[in-house]
């Protein structure tokens, strides 16, 4: 009888690992908290840097799923234990699952922009998040101000909830900079006469094609990049938002009115308390799970038979998540063979 693998979370990491594990001959069960598979990929319109439709990637992941894979949605793990060489898990539905190995692919949560109260999310009418903007694009809606008018000037604010000791997240979320550049271009393609400003501290264009996207934003779309972190935002009586930043490359304070403000929300760790308590897994000061070795066991935990893939061990792009999911599948296969 072939061995069984339990995957927790049916996002990008869970689905990709599932496909590979099935091909290697293992029986896979995926437990998913929400009512559908695909995780946050369901919420994005187009992906950086190639601007491939998110639906296309999701379709690909679904095609790779083995028809015999058991997918249990709307379910949460309530208890999990490693017993000798097996894993035993209970779900909130009363169901029990036995497995020989478990893959944690629970991903991340989006930073709650309300915590940055000074930016006015859900206080000012014309402040939205990058996730809200993705939703507008995905639903094919028109991008308007709260009063239904076409915005003439939009500001995109980088590092909201990232690199911010005050909110408890000192790390970089890695995907927001390039998302901000991508969304700036998308805004310009929808509303060519709209002025778009990106307020940043550094532009972290580290991956392949990211820098090209940044140049495209400047040269083709005349997006303006202003180095300076948003310090204050006020709502004017007409609903526009007055922002104050320092243009740190000029060493001068600056103010301007914006019709719409987009907050680039970062990644925060999911709730790992069950894994910490019952599997004795460690989390870092950033609250993400810690792998057994940062170089050589990046998809393994310190607990026997428990593996990681994706953003549960820290902010990651979708490409890196897929690579990690494949690595985790192979690591699990190696573990189950011995």
């Amino acid at each position, binding site marked *: 009888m072939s061995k069984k693998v339990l995957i927790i979370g049916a996002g990008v990491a869970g689905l990709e690992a599932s496909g590979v594990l099935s091909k290697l001959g293992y029986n896979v069960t995926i437990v998913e908290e929400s009512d559908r598979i695909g995780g946050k990929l369901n919420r994005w319109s187009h992906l950086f840097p190639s601007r491939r439709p998110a639906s296309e990637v999701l379709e690909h992941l679904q095609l790779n799923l083995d028809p015999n894979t058991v997918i249990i949605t709307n379910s949460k793990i309530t208890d999990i234990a490693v017993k000798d060489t097996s894993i035993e898990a209970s779900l909130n539905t009363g169901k029990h699952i036995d497995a020989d190995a478990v893959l944690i692919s629970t991903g991340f949560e989006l930073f709650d922009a309300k915590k940055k109260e000074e930016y006015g999310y859900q206080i000012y009418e014309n402040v939205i998040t990058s996730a809200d903007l993705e939703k507008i694009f995905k639903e094919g809606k028109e991008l308007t101000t709260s009063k239904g008018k076409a915005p003439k000037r939009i500001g995109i604010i980088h590092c909201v909830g990232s690199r911010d000791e005050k909110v408890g997240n000192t790390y970089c979320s890695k995907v927001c900079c390039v998302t901000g550049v991508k969304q700036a271009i998308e805004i310009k393609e929808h509303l060519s006469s709209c002025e778009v400003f990106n307020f940043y501290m550094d532009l972290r264009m580290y991956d392949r094609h990211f820098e090209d996207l940044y*140049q495209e934003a*400047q*040269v083709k779309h*005349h997006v*303006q990049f202003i*180095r300076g972190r948003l310090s204050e935002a006020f709502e004017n009586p007409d609903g526009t938002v007055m922002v104050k930043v320092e*243009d740190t*490359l*000029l060493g*001068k*304070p*600056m*103010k*301007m*009115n914006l019709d719409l403000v987009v907050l680039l929300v970062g990644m925060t760790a999911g709730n790992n308390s069950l894994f910490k308590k019952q599997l004795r897994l460690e989390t870092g000061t950033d609250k993400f799970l810690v792998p057994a070795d940062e170089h050589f066991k990046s998809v393994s935990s310190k607990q026997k038979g428990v593996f990681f893939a994706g953003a549960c061990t820290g902010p990651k792009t979708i490409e890196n998540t897929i690579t990690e999911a494949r690595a985790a599948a192979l690591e699990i296969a190696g573990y189950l063979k011995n």
Partner: protein
Amino acid sequence: MPDFGYKISKDRQINFDENSKNLFAEVAMREPSVYRCISCGTCAATCSAAQFTSYSLRKMILLLKRGEDKEVITSVSRCMLCGKCQLACPMGVNTRNLILSIQNAIKKLSHV
């Protein structure tokens, strides 16, 4: 004006909404490679004028974009058009023509 022993400081804040961006638009039309600038400062580091004055092409481009034209006008004449910045620029900005374009655009918009 009697001397009261103190003076009122001028507002340093850039008021983006009130600043006209016509000069930048005119310059960008004449030398579109200005959009390639990534504010790295290579130009200013190699600049002979910058060694002795506060002149900086990097800053001048930003001042133009923000509509701080007055500073641009007082600053641009410091350039001696030696062209070293053009050799140094990693983004291929035609800096020499950019500076000439700024000078000509200022004349055209009779800022002088």
